[in-house]
């Protein structure tokens, strides 16, 4: 699955390129996430602005990503589209993640200035 890593100081900013995280790609999402954060010690921000569809399998994969980081590393979400936000709220999984309106907001919350 196409996810790119952009290092922003201590933050690993992960951009999800496809517009869907659903049952057909949930395993690929988890595998790619695991590979990307393997050697990263700091917090991770998952940029979901491209994602317009998330089902319960996709949500399960995002929760699995959070568990993979363990207690020592934070996982923030940014740029939730209305459909993604609705799934997060209905399942109450919005309580699991710090959620930011944009990548800039997410970086600012960690005290990192966005790239010029």
């Amino acid at each position, binding site marked *: 699955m196409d996810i790119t890593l952009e290092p922003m100081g201590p933050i690993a900013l992960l951009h999800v390129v496809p517009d*869907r995280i659903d*049952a057909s790609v949930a395993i690929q999402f988890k595998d790619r996430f695991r590979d990307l954060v393997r050697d990263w010690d700091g917090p991770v921000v998952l940029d979901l602005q491209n994602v317009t*569809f998330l089902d*319960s399998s996709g949500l399960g994969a995002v*929760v699995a990503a959070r*568990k993979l980081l363990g207690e020592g590393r934070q996982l923030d979400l940014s740029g939730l589209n209305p459909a993604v936000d609705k799934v997060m709220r209905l*399942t*109450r*999984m919005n*309580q699991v993640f710090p959620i930011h309106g944009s990548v800039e907001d997410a970086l600012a919350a960690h005290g990192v200035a966005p790239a010029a």
Partner: protein
Amino acid sequence: MSVRDLPSPRQGDPPGGTALGWACTRRFEAQPALVSVELLGLNQTLIQLGLPIEQLFTLELVLAEVLNNVVEHAYQDRGEGRIELSVSVHAGFIHCGVTDFGAPMPGGVLPPARRHSPKALALQDLPEGSFGWALIRDLTTGLKYCRDEGINRLSFRIALED
């Protein structure tokens, strides 16, 4: 492509005006990638018919949950097994029927909605699944299931108005 059998909307129709009475039936194999393609095609067609985006998202989400349950449970992830999906647009709601020929629901009834309280759970105890039936039950009306001579029949409505 999934939109092959679906009617092309005429240009310039008033939003929603041509959608009433629209119906389709689709048959496809129980594979996650095929479910995604079907949902994408259906969604594109219904957007072109002028139906409201937010309700179409609800429809897509509910169908994703229902169809993936069929793939994973009724057909136990075998990668095959026929699914029939019928969708029709009525005044104020979309009706959906899903038929499969796989295993029956446990106990012959619809599973309950599982509600999670993530704040009360340790990180490693957070659920990675079992969200589906709560979403289906919250977002549909008239949800019905029956087992009919080896066939699972599920039907429900998605409201088109708040």
